């Protein structure tokens, strides 16, 4: 065997946290033992030699695939690119500072999401995911420049066991593995480090979830980082050793990229079928698989002198049964900082927010010029007949085609002139509309002061009840402060000196009992409370809930229940 001057580095990812824990102490100086929960810090920074843009695309794709994000990865990539520029005013290629997830979350929460995302939903999904990973990963990713496997381990001929037991949820663990594999593989690809022999061995035991068909399908080109390592890694000196419990769900991509298949005892049907195909077992051979004793293996090695399946026995190596007593190793890294400790970043962010607002106003102005006539008419009618359902407004315009109605709605929404919400009343759907500040500006009118809390539907229902009261010549208030309390009632009618209060329930009815107590117990000004819901079944549920409360018994005669349809029919018979 010729002298191999370069040591083969072994990167062992220990998911159970015990199978390989004895190896660093046993094998000595070239071995490190790191723990994801203690001392290890891996950042989003690229390994030396990879351009930031290329790296950002790679890790954002991986993050989105693992976290189940679709379009939101562009939002993450935008934030990363911007922050990298701000954190590195004078970039040092080998030591670029990259934001960690906490900083990304701080930035996402600091300004409007429209700074980074074309649709608010993209930003919201990303924020939720960032919250999840910052909570789940502890301090693991809290670094602006963390462990670089090539720089800190492989180039020194070292090996490492990474204890990643109990790193959950599974997608965080998978992203962590992707980050490591991407660091090693992409650095070699980018630097064109083609070698003849093996330089790095990646060992992933219990890798079932990482190499499944589902895992591959989550990635745009159908190949996860581990799939890429298996297919591309050989010419760059990367070898993978993968341990699986079940063969039935493994990606074809993975199975076809492996040269040595070692199959131990398998008993589930899918695994036996897959193993039979993989090992090219003749008929009857599948019966051997469940009969294999511990240590016995059926294996096939392609691209060797003998490509037939063989039956063998692996040498016994004692398992690790020691309790860990030595501390985990550490490594150099640049600690991360929250946004509050980065005044330069905040200053840059404030400037960006100002610029963004200027751009938005400019876009609104530009949109006005292109607004279709039908949309303009709808806006006019809505301003003249506030709180009318959109269907009523279309009737006033002349009942245009549904295509025209939809286009008009989209134009108003995209130009941020109006917002729409679908209401569900009895068994009917009703579209409701609210003119936004941009719409009032276009109309050349000043926006009325918004009264009432809640969304479009809640506001409309309150206004309908108020109008019915006015039509019956009652004195009407909305957001009426109930005397003697700090509670505002949605709508109040005054008739002959006594107050009738209305509480509108659209979605949430959790606070209704406290509303009733405020009106009927804490205050002596209110005669009755009427609870108004969208649908009869909700009305009945709420009634049942109230009647089941013992404290409500003396008040039941003063509590009425109605559906909003009652008031709608009075306004629009």
């Amino acid at each position, binding site marked *: 065997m010729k002298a191999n001057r370069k040591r083969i580095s072994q990167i062992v990812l220990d998911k159970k946290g015990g199978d390989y824990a004895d190896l660093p102490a046993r094998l000595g100086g070239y071995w490190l033992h790191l723990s994801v929960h203690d001392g290890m810090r891996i950042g989003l920074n690229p390994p030396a030699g990879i351009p930031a843009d290329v790296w950002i695309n790679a890790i954002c794709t991986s993050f989105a695939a693992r976290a189940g994000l679709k379009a939101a990865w562009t939002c993450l990539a935008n934030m990363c690119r911007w922050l990298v520029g701000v954190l590195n005013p004078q970039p040092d290629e080998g030591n670029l500072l990259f934001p960690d997830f906490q900083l990304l979350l701080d930035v996402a929460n600091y300004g409007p999401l429209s700074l980074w995302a074309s649709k608010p939903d993209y930003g919201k999904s990303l924020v939720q995911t960032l919250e999840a990973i910052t909570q789940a990963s502890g301090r693991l990713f809290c670094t602006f420049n963390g462990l670089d496997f090539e720089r800190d381990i492989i180039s020194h001929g070292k*090996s490492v066991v990474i204890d990643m037991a109990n790193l959950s949820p599974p997608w965080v663990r998978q992203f962590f593995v992707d980050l490591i594999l991407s660091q090693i593989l992409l650095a070699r690809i980018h630097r064109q480090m083609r070698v*003849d022999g093996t330089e790095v061995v990646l*060992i992933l035991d219990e890798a079932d979830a990482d190499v499944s068909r589902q895992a591959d399908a989550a990635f745009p080109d159908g190949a996860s980082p581990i799939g890429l390592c298996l297919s591309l890694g050989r010419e760059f000196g990367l070898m993978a*050793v993968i341990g699986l*419990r079940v063969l039935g769900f493994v990606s074809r991509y993975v199975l076809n990229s492996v040269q040595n298949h070692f199959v*131990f005892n398998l008993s589930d049907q899918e695994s036996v079928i897959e193993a039979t195909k993989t090992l090219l077992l003749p008929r009857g051979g599948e019966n051997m698989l469940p009969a294999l004793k511990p*240590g016995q293996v059926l294996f096939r090695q392609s691209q060797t*002198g003998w490509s037939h399946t063989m039956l063998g026995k692996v040498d016994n190596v004692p*398992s690790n049964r020691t309790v860990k007593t030595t501390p985990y190793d550490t490594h150099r890294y640049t600690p991360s900082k929250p946004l509050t400790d980065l005044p330069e970043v905040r200053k840059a962010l404030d400037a960006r927010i100002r610029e963004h607002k200027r751009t938005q106003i400019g876009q609104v102005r530009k949109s006005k010029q292109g607004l279709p006539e039908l949309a303009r008419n709808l806006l006019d009618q809505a301003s003249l007949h506030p709180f009318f359902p959109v269907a009523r407004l279309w009737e006033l315009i002349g009942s245009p085609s549904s295509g025209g109605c939809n286009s008009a709605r989209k134009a108003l929404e995209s130009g941020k002139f109006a917002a729409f919400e679908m209401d569900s009343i009895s068994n009917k759907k009703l579209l409701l509309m609210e003119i936004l500040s941009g719409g009032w500006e276009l109309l050349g009118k000043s926006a009325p002061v918004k009264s009432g809390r809640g969304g479009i539907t809640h506001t409309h229902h309150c206004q309908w009840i108020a109008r019915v009261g006015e039509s019956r010549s009652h004195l009407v208030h909305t957001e009426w402060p109930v005397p003697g309390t700090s509670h505002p009632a949605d709508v109040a009618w005054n008739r002959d000196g006594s107050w009738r209060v209305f509480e509108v329930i659209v979605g949430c009815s959790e606070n209704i009992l406290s509303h009733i107590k405020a009106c009927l117990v804490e205050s002596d000004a209110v005669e009755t409370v009427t609870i108004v819901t969208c649908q009869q079944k909700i009305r009945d549920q709420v009634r049942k809930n109230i009647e089941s409360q013992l404290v409500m018994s003396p008040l039941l005669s003063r509590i009425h229940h109605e559906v909003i349809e009652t008031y709608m029919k009075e306004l629009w018979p």
Partner: protein
Amino acid sequence: MGQSLDTLLDAIAKYNLDRFEEGEQILQLAELGRVSEHQARAYLIHLEDLIQQQIDFPNVLHRPPDPDELHADGSPDILLGEIENGTEFGLRIVDRPRHVLCAGTTGSGKTTCIRNIILRIEELNRESQQETNLTDRSG
């Protein structure tokens, strides 16, 4: 021929035990008439494990290779175990990487195999380091 000897010869034929050294030797002795009934019974007991193995593992695989056949492309850099005829098997990794997949239920030996691979690679590293040191010292 006695009943036990019949049974013995049937078993050797049925389970192809002549592939194994023991089976071949017993067959040769039987052909020379040197196996008594008593010896036949003893051989049957002796071959029980081998017979059970053939029941569990029907003879559907290709015959196990000799060392020269298995290592035709070069000896393995790391040894992992033996195949059924005693030939050692392992992995060649120094000249180029060859990925490995180990599949098996809990307790089947999968992790033992992987630990084996790790330890053997580390032995390889140390041998290589020693060879390098020797080369350096001798100039």
